[in-house]
């Protein structure tokens, strides 16, 4: 356990492709679907930030890959380089290691990043699990006399469904009678309209991804900006590439609910090691009253039970439709680690406004009643012309 580990900084995509099988095994061991190389490398191929460069740290113990920290170096103007996770802020991403090896791996990762050129100024661990060793481990194990300052500036709820009940029927029994009645009615209503739930196959994939995009976009019409909508073309390519790898093994799951052969709701999920992560969904507002979205989510849960998964994570956000199905909360958080180097004060000054803005917003949320918060949101939407 105390033998030193080898850390290699990889910036060559071909080398990453070589590491992909072992990397994927780590994502499975950690139950982190969106940390799998299929997702992260597809993201890199289609959505790299301008000027970004791969800075992935692979940590080996002998021949065995024990950890991977898939960073990408993004220049943020002059004199600042952010090391962010591959995959942008896809939920529950971050470095991964064999369970129990996080701290010795963090020492190897920190050492490699401190030596790497160009050197990062900020390590941005965005949308990572609150219960993660990594931010603290990287700070504690960073080489040199100064411990990097660490700032966790935002925490967001992420509702989860425990699949420990063993079967879908038992899970339904454990939910309250109100929930059961409501969901049974939803299913009856959908069936009465000839509704059919299905999962995407290789034959239907392209059309299904297009339907997912359309349904998601329709949900956002007049409601602001969706990160998926603004990157539709690139994300379509990402989804199709991931599906090419993981559709067959059930780790890319796109559920659709159809009425008269027309998709009216869609839910996209990724899976690894018993963990199922919802990426997003959409539905046709015209059929919202029937509960087509609920029916689609229910189908995803039932299928997860059938496949023997352990947990389904609805992803960040405390929307009512997520809470309705959840029986737990496992939040994600945004953390910054400032790398000690001569220009650290400058970096600190540059990130301070972002952190202050988020923290002020959170403080306001604490101070205001939900009613007042809603009024402010409405006002903001009007001012921005979205109302």
């Amino acid at each position: 356990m105390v033998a030193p580990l080898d850390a290699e900084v990889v910036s060559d995509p071909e080398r990453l492709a070589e590491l992909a099988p072992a990397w994927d095994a780590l994502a499975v061991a950690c139950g982190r679907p969106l940390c799998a190389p299929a997702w992260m490398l597809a993201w890199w191929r289609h959505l790299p930030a301008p000027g970004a460069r791969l800075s992935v740290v692979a940590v080996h113990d002998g021949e065995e890959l024990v950890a991977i920290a898939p960073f990408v170096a993004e220049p943020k103007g002059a004199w600042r380089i952010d090391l962010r996770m591959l995959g942008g802020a896809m939920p529950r991403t971050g470095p991964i290691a064999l369970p129990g090896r996080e701290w010795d791996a963090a020492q190897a990762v920190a050492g490699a990043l401190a030596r790497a050129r160009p050197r990062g100024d900020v390590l941005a661990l965005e949308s990572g699990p609150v219960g993660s060793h990594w931010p603290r481990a990287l700070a504690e194990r960073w080489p040199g006399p100064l411990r990097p300052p660490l700032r966790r500036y935002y925490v967001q709820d992420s509702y989860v469904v425990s699949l420990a009940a063993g079967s879908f029927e038992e899970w339904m029994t454990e939910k309250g009678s109100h929930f059961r009645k409501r969901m049974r009615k939803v299913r009856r209503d959908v069936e009465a309209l000839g509704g059919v739930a299905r999962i995407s196959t290789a034959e239907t994939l392209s059309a299904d991804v297009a339907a997912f995009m359309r349904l998601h976009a329709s949900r956002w019409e007049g409601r602001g900006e969706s990160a998926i909508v603004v990157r539709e073309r690139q994300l379509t390519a990402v989804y199709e590439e991931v599906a090419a790898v993981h559709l067959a093994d059930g780790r890319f799951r796109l559920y659709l609910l159809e009425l008269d052969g027309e998709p009216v709701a869609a839910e996209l999920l990724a899976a690894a090691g018993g963990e199922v992560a919802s990426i997003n969904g959409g539905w046709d507002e015209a059929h919202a009253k029937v509960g087509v979205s609920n029916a689609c989510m229910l189908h995803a849960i039932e299928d997860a039970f059938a496949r023997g998964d352990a947990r389904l994570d609805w992803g960040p956000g405390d929307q009512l439709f997520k809470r309705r199905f959840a029986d737990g909360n496992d939040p994600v958080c945004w953390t910054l680690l400032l790398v000690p180097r001569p220009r650290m004060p400058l970096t600190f000054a540059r990130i301070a406004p972002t952190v202050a803005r988020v923290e002020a917003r959170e403080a306001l949320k604490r101070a205001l009643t939900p009613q007042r918060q809603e009024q402010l949101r409405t006002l903001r939407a009007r001012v921005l012309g979205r109302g």
Partner: protein
Amino acid sequence: MLDAELIAEVDGLAALAPEWDALAVADALPQMSPAWVLAWWRHVAPEGALPRGVAVRDGGRLVGLAPFYVAPDGGGRLDYRLPGIEIAARLAPLAVPGREWEVAAAIDGALAGATPRPDALLFEGIAVDGQWQSALRDRWPGSLRPPLWRTHVDGSPFVSLREGSFEAWMAARSSNFRQQMRRMRRRFEQAGGVARVATRATLADDAAAFVRLHASRWDDRGHSNLVDLGERFAAMIADAGERLLEDGRLTLRMLDLDGEPICAQLFIEAGGTELFVNGGWDERHAAFKPSLLCLLDAVEDAFARGRGRLDLGVGEQPYKLRFADGDAPLEWAVLLTPGPRLALSAARSTRTLVRSRVRAAALRGLSEERVGQLRGLQRRLRGAA
């Protein structure tokens, strides 16, 4: 919506024992089980300590429990602490897995209205990757989010037991490790040594032997909380053993030579996690390497009992690292609750924080050799004092 009830009597806590134990099992935290914590209250709790537990229910079901107590002297700051850090770490409130954040909101609400009002919640030896520090901070009621000051981190190695069997685990160690362990066992057996676990009949005597052996290890070697507790800890072991021994959830391992105990190690278990609490051995028999022998037995037994993890406890001593294949560090932190005394509490906490930061900076900046020299000097100064 959850209901939170503040419990200010030890009897009130004891009344929750069956449901409480189910939570300790679900969270795999043997050090937070009622048998252990209530034995702590009966034998080890500091004089004047006041229970301030919070029980959280969803309908009739207990979904969370934070068995805090008020420390009689927090240096002018009123601290709410979790019981037992003198003995074992990885202390935490309990909750049904996945419900920590809503339980934290209910606990916070109850604590904010508790009397006496806490100035600080202390997290002593809490898991770095746990939810509670963040959750109790984030869900504290009111417009101000309480400051959370993290002081230091300590390693806590464990044996993952992922190999499935003792034989497979041994096969995965180095050949040097295997040879040494087998040789040690042979030598001990050839010398007439006997390895055994305490039974109901021997528990009181074995607990006394544990305390004696532990104290002898610490002669002239610094400070041990368990040495300070002395016979009170022996009584606590015997008390907890009354409830945990039969189920195999408390194991006191003994090595005897010529009928005399030369090594004792204490383990408690919940939810598949076996926790090594502490141990002691007779220096005169160091050649048998009794602590390694005893730990090897514990690993073998953990596999036999189908445990999920053997937690070797706080501290990265070399003998633990020989067995460990993972580390799950613990941290010490203080959550300062917002209120009229916040500034005063912060001022009172600053000294501890500064001291720990200086210590951490020194550890980062100095070579291991220099750190060793400084530790030696510190021991000598303490000895002289």
